[in-house]
């Protein structure tokens, strides 16, 4: 294992956007190995956009993303494929492949990326499903699952290749409070015992305070980072009013200009 201070993810001068339209500019931040790093911010500030650029779904227009010392943003061909196997992603709605059963969803990465025997893969699949309490539903198709079950199955699939980094896109959304709390506990324990680096995109305050070692707040206005720090400290002592408002769930102070458009 690497040292405590080694960096799992290093982002330098990253520009994110779609179709020539910049959403975020010049982002630079680091995520330590074994850390739970939360990306937060108001709706539309580019949290999910940043996640898509981090995991390589969109190519950044500038800057670089380094995973465990290797530049992912410029990696091509086999090297890129190898790096893609080193991280898992739990998408917001689970993103299970609808034509495959739950078990087949978890098995597919193992079948495609490993040379393990089929019966061993079957055992690994059932093991991962048992850990997220989905073993009894292995034969069901995603359309037959509830939202929480889809998320659990998605987590089993994200862990299929025992990744070193796990990304979560809005893990608590659509879950009832006890289930969301259970997922938060799982996230913490994965970090505590396995040393997995976790990057969680969320704006659920309860989750942020419960799990985050460090949190980064994005700003819609400046298209960049508002602040990085420990959530509890930021909530109390942040010099930025927007950060305190966000973390303390306070209403925004409006400026003098009206935002209401009256049509005659």
């Amino acid at each position, binding site marked *: *294992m*690497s040292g405590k201070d080694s960096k799992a993810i290093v982002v330098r001068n990253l520009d994110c956007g779609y179709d020539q339209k910049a959403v975020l500019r010049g982002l630079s931040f680091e995520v330590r190995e074994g850390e739970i790093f939360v990306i937060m911010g108001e709706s539309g500030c580019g949290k999910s956009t940043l996640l898509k650029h981090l995991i390589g779904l969109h190519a950044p227009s500038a800057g670089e993303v380094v*995973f*465990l*010392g*290797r530049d992912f943003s410029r990696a091509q061909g086999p090297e890129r494929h190898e*790096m893609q196997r*080193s991280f898992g992603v739990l998408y917001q709605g689970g993103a299970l492949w*609808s*034509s495959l059963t739950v*078990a087949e969803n978890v098995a597919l990465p*193992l079948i495609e*990326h*490993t*040379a*393990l*025997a089929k*019966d*061993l*893969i079957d*055992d*690994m699949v*059932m*093991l*991962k*499903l*048992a*850990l*997220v*309490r989905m*073993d*009894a*539903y*292995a*034969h*069901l198709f*995603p*359309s037959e699952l509830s939202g929480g079950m889809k998320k659990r199955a998605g987590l089993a699939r994200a862990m299929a*290749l*025992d*990744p*070193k*980094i796990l990304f979560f896109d809005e893990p608590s959304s659509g879950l009832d409070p006890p289930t969301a709390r*259970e997922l938060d*506990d*799982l996230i913490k*324990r*994965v970090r*505590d*015992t*396995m*040393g997995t680096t976790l990057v969680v995109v969320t704006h659920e305050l309860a989750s942020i305070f419960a799990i985050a070692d460090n949190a980064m707040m994005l700003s819609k206005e400046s298209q960049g980072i508002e602040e990085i720090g420990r959530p509890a400290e930021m909530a109390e002592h942040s010099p930025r009013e927007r950060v305190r408002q966000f973390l303390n769930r306070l209403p925004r102070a409006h400026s003098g200009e009206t935002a209401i458009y009256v049509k005659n």
Partner: protein
Amino acid sequence: MIQSRWDWYLDFMDEVPVTSVDAALAAPPLLRVQEEHGSLSVFFQGDWTWRAPQPALLALEQGLAKGVKEVCCRTEGVKQWDSSLLALLLRLRRQCEEAHISFRADTLPTRLKRLLDEVPRIRSPKEPPAAQAGLFKSAGQKAIGFFESAYRTLYFTGECAQALAKVCRFPKALRWPQCRMVMQECGPASLGIVGLVSFLTGCILAWQGALQLRQFGAEIYVADLVGVALVREMGPIMVAIVLAGRIGASFAAHLASMEASEEVDALRTWGFSPVQFLVLPRLVAMTCMMPLLVLYADVLGIAGGMVVSVGFLGVARSAFLAETWQALALTDLRVGLLKSLVFAAGVAGIGCATGLKAERSVDGIGDATTSSVVKSILFIIVVDAIFGACSQPSIRL
């Protein structure tokens, strides 16, 4: 329950160094088997991860086949690992259970043993027993399905008629901005493909007609053939098929995705009729635009026939036009335009209906799109055949 399982799994993971993403595999995984007094000791050594080629398990299987009474696993020599090792241990234990061999796990780390104890409680999937559908049952189900489908179609048609009547009384009830957008998509945006298809259809008709008529020295009658066939049959059919693929399918996909994302439910909750809001603008737009497209297609199709006749068959342009003018009756145009109205209503209605009753899934959207195109083309052909039968000279419209 989930908490305890995670405890064991994660504590187990914590005991042995977890494999690093970019860590070079220092030692390949090795499996050594040693048999002594009916007890088989299995030594795991090296890096046991899915990245490493798994060693052959032949020695292990041979050892098990020798009739040993006990298997003892030892993992002290393991340096890196992941869940592939755990799965292998699970598999070995299952084999031992099947062969009534004692599986000793006491030499394994305590927490791994606890995890292994927990895993038999993995609930096997409870698949429902496959229903035995007999001949009568499946025939009955099909019949019920047919009548249900017919009822839904009638109900939908009634809803459309009701909404249309409302729009006739209160024209503002129609969402004109959306209707104009659909008109733009059906009409001007379709001119290119409709023009190309019609022009080539005219060319093909002229060629095929000329091959036969030339035998009688009657090439000039190619104009009659092209003109009448296009205006009465091919023009409306080709335009309807193009719009079924281009527009009807997009109606189905759009409404199916709205159904999947609960947008249609939101309309119903607000007391808005989905037929009024979603179907009618599309129906009206398609019904307005298709006759115009058919006229355009007729002109281009006849132009295609003329290009072939004048360019390759030696027919004079003025003779071709005069013959076409003489051959065509107003009734032909009327039949063609009437067909186009029915086709338009059918294609738009089928596209919207299949979209609205689609399953709320990714597959549902795909199925609705395919089904819409297939049903629309079937509808076009069947309705055209009915028109053909009804518009014979004896019962000419």
